[in-house]
C-alpha cells in the first residue's frame, strides 16, 4: 500500500474529525479523496502539520488528527519533545512513513534507513506510540480516537504517488471554512 491507499482507507474514520493535513501530495490526495470542511490543507510550510495540530488540540476540546509524513517530521524534529511535554489527550499525530520525500520525487529519507521515528518519539517522552503496517492504520487510528489518549502513530507504507490536481482553493477560504467547522 502507498500513502493514497491509506488515505482512502481511513477517509470514513477521519471525515468527522478535525484534520491538519501535511503540505504537498498528502493534502492534494485527501482533498481529492474526501474534501471536508473539517480538513485544513497546508499549501506551504513543510514540517508544521504536527505543531499546528498540537496548538489546535491545546486550544479546544475536539479530537485533532495531524496527518504528517516522515520527511516532514524529520524537518521539524523539535516538535516531538514539545508534543511529549504538552500532553493533549485529544491529539493524534499520524505519521505516514513511506521512507521518502514523496512530494519532491521520492528521494529516500533517513526514516527509511536507520532512523526509527517510533523510537525517537518514545525517547522524546511520548507515552503512547504505535507503529503499524499500512493495512492496520484504520484500526489503529480508530483505537487511538476511542482511547482519548494522546497517540503518535507511525504507519509504515510503500513509497509512491498517484496523479492528483493541485489545490486551487484560496488559503483564507480554507482557513475560514475550517474555523467554522471547529466552532460548529
Amino acid at each position: 500500500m502507498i500513502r493514497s491507499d491509506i488515505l482512502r482507507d481511513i477517509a470514513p474514520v477521519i471525515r468527522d474529525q478535525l484534520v491538519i493535513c501535511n503540505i504537498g501530495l498528502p493534502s492534494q490526495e485527501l482533498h481529492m479523496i474526501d474534501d471536508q470542511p473539517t480538513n485544513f490543507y497546508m499549501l506551504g510550510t513543510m514540517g508544521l502539520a504536527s505543531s499546528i495540530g498540537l496548538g489546535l488540540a491545546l486550544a479546544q476540546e475536539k479530537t485533532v488528527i495531524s496527518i504528517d509524513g516522515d520527511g516532514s517530521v524529520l524537518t521539524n524534529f523539535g516538535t516531538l519533545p514539545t508534543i511529549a511535554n504538552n500532553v493533549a489527550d485529544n491529539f493524534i499525530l499520524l505519521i505516514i512513513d513511506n521512507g521518502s520525500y514523496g512530494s519532491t520525487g521520492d528521494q529516500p529519507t533517513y526514516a527509511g534507513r536507520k532512523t526509527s521515528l517510533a523510537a525517537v518519539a518514545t525517547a522524546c517522552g511520548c507515552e503512547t506510540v504505535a507503529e503499524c503496517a499500512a493495512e492496520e492504520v484504520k484500526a489503529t487510528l480508530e483505537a487511538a480516537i476511542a482511547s482519548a489518549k494522546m497517540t503518535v502513530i507511525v504507519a509504515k507504507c510503500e513509497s509512491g504517488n498517484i496523479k492528483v490536481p493541485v489545490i486551487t482553493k484560496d488559503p483564507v477560504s480554507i482557513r475560514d471554512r475550517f474555523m467554522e467547522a471547529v466552532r460548529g
Partner: protein
Amino acid sequence: MSIHTRIVDDLIANDISFVTTVPCKQLAGVIEEVEARPEIAHVPANKEDEGMGLCAGAYMGGKRPAIIMQNTAIGVTINTLVTLTQFYRMPLPMLISYRGELREPVACQAEMAVHTKALLNQLHIPTYHFHKEDDVEELDAILKYTFMCSKPVAILTDATFWGGY
C-alpha cells in the same frame, strides 16, 4: 509594577491566552511572568517556526496567540511567516528582543541586528521599536491593531528598553 508584569497584563487585557516562547536573556523576566499567569497557556517551543505553527493552531482553535522570541528568529521564520501566517491571514503579535543594538556586548548579535528591520520591511510586517521604557505605553494599541488587521506584527525591544543587557 515591573515592566514584565506590565507587558503580560497588556497581553491578558487583550485576551491573549496562548503564548509560545523561545528564550533570550533579555526576555527572561517576561517569560517567567507568562509562565506564572494562570490566564495564559505557555508552550515553550524548540524553534520559532514550530512556535508559529503552534500559534496558528491555537488561533484556529479560538484562542488569541502570541510569540516571544529573539530577532535572530526572523532569519529562521521567513518561510513560515509568509506561507502560513500571512498566506492564511492570521494575526500574530511577536514580542521580539532586539539583540545587537546599543549596549550589546556580543559582536555577533550586531550582524543580525543590521538585517532585522530590512527583513521585516521586505516582508511588509508592521514593526514597532521600543527603545525607552515609556514606549511600552503603545503595547495595548499595537495588540489591538494586530487583531484588527490579522497580520503578524513585530515589536522590537532593545537593551535600552529593558534597562541594560
